[in-house]
C-alpha cells in the first residue's frame, strides 16, 4: 500500500472508531458501500400478558408449540438445541427449523436463535443461516411488547427477498402469539391456513425475484 493510501485508510479507520454507532458513512474509494436501509426485518406488537408469561411461551417447547409451530424443541441456554417443526409429519430435514441453536439469552428480555434461510434462497446460495432476535419489554403488569427481528442477510442477488419474506412471516408470528394469549393454544388447521395464505402472498408479490437481474 502506498503512503497516500495508507493515510486515507488511517483517517478512515480513526473516523470509523470515533463515530462507530453514530455514523457508518464510507470514505470514498476505500470502503464497501453500506446499505442505507435497515439490514433486518422487523415485526412488533403488544401482547396482553405479563413478560413472564410471554417469556415462557418463547422459551419452552410447550409454549412454542402452542403458537409458533405444532412441534418444538428448545434447550434454553446458549448453544442449546432449537427446532420448530412446521411440518412435523415430514421426514427429518424437511420439518422446518431443525438443528439450530440458541445464540444468546437474557432471561425475560432477549432470545437470539440461529435460523434457516428460506428454501428459495438456499436453492440459490446454499444452506446459509440467518438470525432471529426476540425482544420483550414489559409495558404494564399484563402487557408486553414483543419484537421479532431477523438479521444476517447478504447483499448478493441470491439474498433478494429475504427481508420481505421474514417481515411477512414474523407478522404472522406476532398475530399468532396474541391469539394464543387471548384464546389459548392455536387451532392449527386455521393457523396453517394462515401460513399457506402468507406463502401464496409471498409468491404473488414475487419477493424472491432478484432485483439485480
Amino acid at each position, binding site marked *: *500500500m502506498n503512503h497516500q*493510501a495508507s493515510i486515507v*485508510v488511517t483517517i*478512515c*479507520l480513526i473516523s*470509523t*472508531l470515533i463515530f*462507530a*454507532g*453514530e455514523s*457508518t458513512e*464510507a*470514505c470514498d474509494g*476505500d*470502503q*464497501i458501500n*453500506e446499505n442505507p436501509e435497515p439490514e433486518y426485518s422487523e415485526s412488533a406488537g403488544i401482547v396482553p400478558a405479563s413478560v413472564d408469561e410471554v417469556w415462557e411461551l418463547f422459551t419452552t417447547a410447550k409454549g412454542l408449540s402452542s403458537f409458533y409451530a405444532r412441534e418444538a424443541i428448545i434447550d434454553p*441456554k*446458549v*448453544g442449546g438445541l432449537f427446532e420448530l417443526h412446521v411440518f412435523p409429519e415430514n421426514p427429518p430435514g424437511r420439518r422446518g427449523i431443525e*438443528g439450530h441453536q440458541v*445464540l*444468546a*439469552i*437474557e*432471561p425475560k*428480555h*432477549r432470545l*437470539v436463535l*440461529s435460523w434457516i434461510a428460506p428454501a428459495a434462497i438456499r436453492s440459490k*446460495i*446454499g*444452506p*446459509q*443461516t*440467518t*438470525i432471529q*432476535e426476540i*425482544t420483550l419489554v414489559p409495558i404494564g403488569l399484563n402487557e408486553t411488547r414483543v419484537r421479532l427481528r431477523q*438479521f*444476517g442477510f*447478504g*447483499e*448478493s442477488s*441470491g439474498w433478494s427477498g429475504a427481508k420481505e419474506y421474514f417481515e411477512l412471516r414474523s407478522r404472522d408470528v406476532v398475530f399468532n402469539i396474541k391469539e394464543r394469549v387471548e384464546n389459548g393454544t392455536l387451532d392449527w388447521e386455521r393457523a396453517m391456513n394462515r401460513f399457506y395464505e402468507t406463502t401464496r402472498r409471498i409468491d404473488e408479490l414475487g419477493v424472491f425475484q432478484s432485483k439485480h437481474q
Partner: protein
Amino acid sequence: MRSKTTIFLVAGLLLPMATGAAEQSMHSPMRDTDLAPVYAHRSFDASINQVWETWTTAAGLRTFFSPDAAVDPQVDGEYSILFYPDNPAGSRGAEGMRIIAFEPPTRFVITWNHPPRFKTLKGQRALVEYRFQARDDGGTDMQVKHFGWGQNEESARSREYFDGAWAAVLKRLDYRYEHGPLDWDNVPKHLMYSGGPK
C-alpha cells in the same frame, strides 16, 4: 517452545477465553435502546482470493491472528482462534465459534463471544460479518461488522472493548501484508491490545 508471555499479551485481543469465572444469574441493567454495530474497514493491495484465504483458513489466520486456529469452511463449521494451542481443550482461546454463513469469496458470518471480564455475558454470542469486495485495481476492500449486542450495560462495555480491539487486529493484518506473517515468539509491542473498559 513459544514465549508464554508474548502469547499472553497477544491473547488479550479479540477473543475471550474459557475461564473458571462463576456464572452470574443476574444480568446487568437493561437498556432501552439497541446498540449499533461496530464497523471496521480496510483496503488491501492483495486480491480478493488472497484476502479471503487469509481469513478463512487456519494457515491464513496463523499469519496475523493467533499462533493456531481451526476452520471448517462451511456453514455450521468450526471457527476457533487458539491463542494457547498447547493448553488442554477448552482453555486454548476462543473455541467453539461457528460459521453462520459462508459465501466465498465475498462474505462470511461467524458467532463471537465476549471477554471473560464481562461475567454476565459469559457464553452469550454476538455475530461478526466479514465482507470483501474486489477493486478495479486488483486490490480488495474489507468491512467487518460486529453486531447482535445485548441490551444491557455489560453489552455496551463489551461493544466498546471490541471497537478498540478490531482496530488492533486490522493493524496486525496490515503488518502481515507489509512485513509477512507474525513471528509469535516476537510480536511487536505496537501490535498488542489489552485495552477497553474494565
